[in-house]
């Protein structure tokens, strides 16, 4: 064995960029109303690539008249064809959409990464397959609604107004549209202003699937378009609002709809606790923590942004975690080996920076692995704070970025108390090899989703939604049908 090492051992991964051409980007995109792509009456805005700040395409935003037209078309489709169609027939359309998303998966993944900044590995392996799976799942429900537990003959509500965020643009569109269509509702959906492209490609897919005009209408635009849709619900022209986004906007919507007959479901912010006990499978817990807060640059409402670790293993876990963070590859989202991509917008980056600075100012210890960030684009290194207390802003406010706050606990009771000590309640994680402890924790955690020995695991069969200021109503699973059914 008296041999020298073969090389100066350093495994440098060569760039492995996905091709931008696959996105088939068009110079301009239009709203989709009543089965037609047509110029919006709002402004034309450029959507940019957050990884290099260059414009990708021009998007014609919708105006008030477009909202009226879309709502009218959706109403006609709901009353005329879609609401009366048999579930089996509606299911066929949904299956067709599901297949088309899968078939155009690569194109959708690339367009999502270009517009959003998330790593291609995530859009390819998570966002797009889950979006397709969501349509497949609800397609299966369309002809079985009488057996879903909401009475023998549950009826659609009518027209659903849906407003979705920029963190999972295509997936959130699927979460909203698939259950609404399966239950016989029609849809007016507004994608986020910074990420309209994948929803408009989905509109192409829907058009090619030959859905009757007006069943799905997609209106790109800013807050004013969202406001206009909510206003139509307040006046009775829309029967239901489904919103995913910030808690502040959620409260505004709830105020606007107070006293109206419109139904409402909200999926809002979170400040999830990821709780690691001393008997946890530590290496997998490290993976779960990483997946919990650095997945999608931490821009996830259910992100595990607070790590609650049992004090007796804190040092060991933090050491393992830091080593693991050192292996994360931050940079070009289009590179297939990138783990952490770009923050979606300059505004979001500023907010993350401001909160991270508050963490330092309030006395927590900031740490990030050495990593060279690209000079252009909106990037933020994966960061963790130790020595965080419940009183710090970084332990209370949703950062919506790749920033982890580490807190410790001594007993299960203290873990519960700290985990629940937040106005939010969307998700939580429990790491222990002890099955009985998992069940006991899950019973006491005030969170809509509790993951055990995993985190940020999504499946269309599983309901998702919040407690407290994280919102109400469930999306996904049989439960997700209820938000769109009169019973």
């Amino acid at each position: 064995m008296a041999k020298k090492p073969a090389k100066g051992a350093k495994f440098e991964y060569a760039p492995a960029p996905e091709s931008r051409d696959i996105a088939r980007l068009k110079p301009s995109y239009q709203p989709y109303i009543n089965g037609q792509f047509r110029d919006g009456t709002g402004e034309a805005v450029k959507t940019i690539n957050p990884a290099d700040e260059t414009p990708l395409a021009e998007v014609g935003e919708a105006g008030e008249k477009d909202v009226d037209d879309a709502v009218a078309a959706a109403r006609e489709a709901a009353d005329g064809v879609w609401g009366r169609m048999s579930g089996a027939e509606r299911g066929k359309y949904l299956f067709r959409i599901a297949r088309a998303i899968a078939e155009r998966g690569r194109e959708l993944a690339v367009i999502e990464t270009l517009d959003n900044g998330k790593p291609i590995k995530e859009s390819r392996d998570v966002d797009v397959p889950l979006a397709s799976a969501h349509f497949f799942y609800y397609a299966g429900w369309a002809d079985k609604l009488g057996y879903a537990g909401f009475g023998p003959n549950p009826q659609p509500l009518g027209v659903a107004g849906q407003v979705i965020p920029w963190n999972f643009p295509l997936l959130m569109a699927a979460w909203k549209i698939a259950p609404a269509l399966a239950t016989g509702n029609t849809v007016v959906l507004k994608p986020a202003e910074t990420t309209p492209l994948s929803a408009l490609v989905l509109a192409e897919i829907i058009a090619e699937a030959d859905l009757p005009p007006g069943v799905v209408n997609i209106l790109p635009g800013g807050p004013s378009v969202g406001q206009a849709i909510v206003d139509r619900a307040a006046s009775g022209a829309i029967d239901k609002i489904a919103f995913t986004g910030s808690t502040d906007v959620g409260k505004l919507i709830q105020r606007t709809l107070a006293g109206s007959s419109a139904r409402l479901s909200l999926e809002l912010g979170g400040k999830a606790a990821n709780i690691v006990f001393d008997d946890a499978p530590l290496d997998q817990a490290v993976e779960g923590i990483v997946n919990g807060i650095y997945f999608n640059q931490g821009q996830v409402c259910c992100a595990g942004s607070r790590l609650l670790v049992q004090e007796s293993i804190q040092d060991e876990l933090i050491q393992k975690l830091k080593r693991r963070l050192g292996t994360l590859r931050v940079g070009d989202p289009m590179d297939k080996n990138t783990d952490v991509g770009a923050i979606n917008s300059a505004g979001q980056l500023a907010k993350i920076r401001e909160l991270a600075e508050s963490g330092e100012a309030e006395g927590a210890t900031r740490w990030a692995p050495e990593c060279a960030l690209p000079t252009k684009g909106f990037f933020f290194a994966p960061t963790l704070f130790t020595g965080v207390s419940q009183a710090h802003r970084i332990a209370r406010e949703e950062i919506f970025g790749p920033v982890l706050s580490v807190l410790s606990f001594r007993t299960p009771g203290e873990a519960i108390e700290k985990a629940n000590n937040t106005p939010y309640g969307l998700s939580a994680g429990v790491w222990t090899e002890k099955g009985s402890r998992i069940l006991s924790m899950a019973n006491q955690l005030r969170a809509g989703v509790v993951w055990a020995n995993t985190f940020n695991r999504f499946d269309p069969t599983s309901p998702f939604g919040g407690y407290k200021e994280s919102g109400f109503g469930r999306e996904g699973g049989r439960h997700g049908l209820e938000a769109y059914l009169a019973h």
Partner: protein
Amino acid sequence: MTTLASDLRDVTSSDAALRRFLHGLPGVDQVGAEARAAGLATRSIKTTAKVWAIDTAISMVDLTTLEGADTPGKVRTLCAKAMRPGEDAPPVAAVCVYPDLVETAVDALRGSSVGVASVATAFPSGRAALETKLHDVRDAVAAGATEIDMVIDRGAFLAGKYLQVLEEIVATKQACGEAHLKVILETGELVTLDNVRRASWLALLAGGDFIKTSTGKVTPASTPPVALVMLEAAREFVDRAGEVRGVKLAGGIRTTKDAIKYLVMVNEVAGETWLDPHLFRFGASALLNDLLQQRHKLTTGAYDGSDYVTVD
């Protein structure tokens, strides 16, 4: 036995202490380990990275023949290939044979950098008296083997007789003298990842220079989650004991694609230190030819058929 950090010195003092230690190791969540291994497998290794990875993998191969039909002629052919795999490819790390063929391999490899590894200890089952197994080892070492691949007593391990397993490894290490000891865990018979972690630590505590997955005679042999757990153990052993030990994956690794996936895992789970034939090996026979074919394709752009690499 080597000197260990103080907190580890006592864990091998009794069966009870050893059991407490091994069962006190953090558990391995099977689903999580599989997900991590699958995630690492999506790394895209192209162009210059691939060139580097292929040559590195070739230099880490223990070119192996472990058949009842092995003859001196077969072993000499293999040794020729080991020293000069083809074109300007680097030599492999070692040739691995049964003890009675060590002498032939030593003769054939004289003057080269290629080591001679021999399986011993009643390979592959390990079902023989300790003295017989040690005799097997001494024979191989006396014939000139520079590396010994032993098998642990899986029966004793599964029966919870950890100290017995440890003491056999310690005795084998002594019988090895200067030769390096690779400890085969036969993970396909240990089945659970918790067992793999415990057996890895047991072998490392006993002084094994390498922990090795499999004999190649049991299915499943090397799997990505098993490799993950063993690489984690090697990394942690450095933290706890201050000593760097090697990992060898053997059995079922036949393609360049698989080898590169494992190198990515070595790089990201254990660390760059292990990207070195002193600390990481592939036990394989068919793998080398696939590496050579892929290497040829990268240099010429054309994939030539199996008739252009030698059958050994």
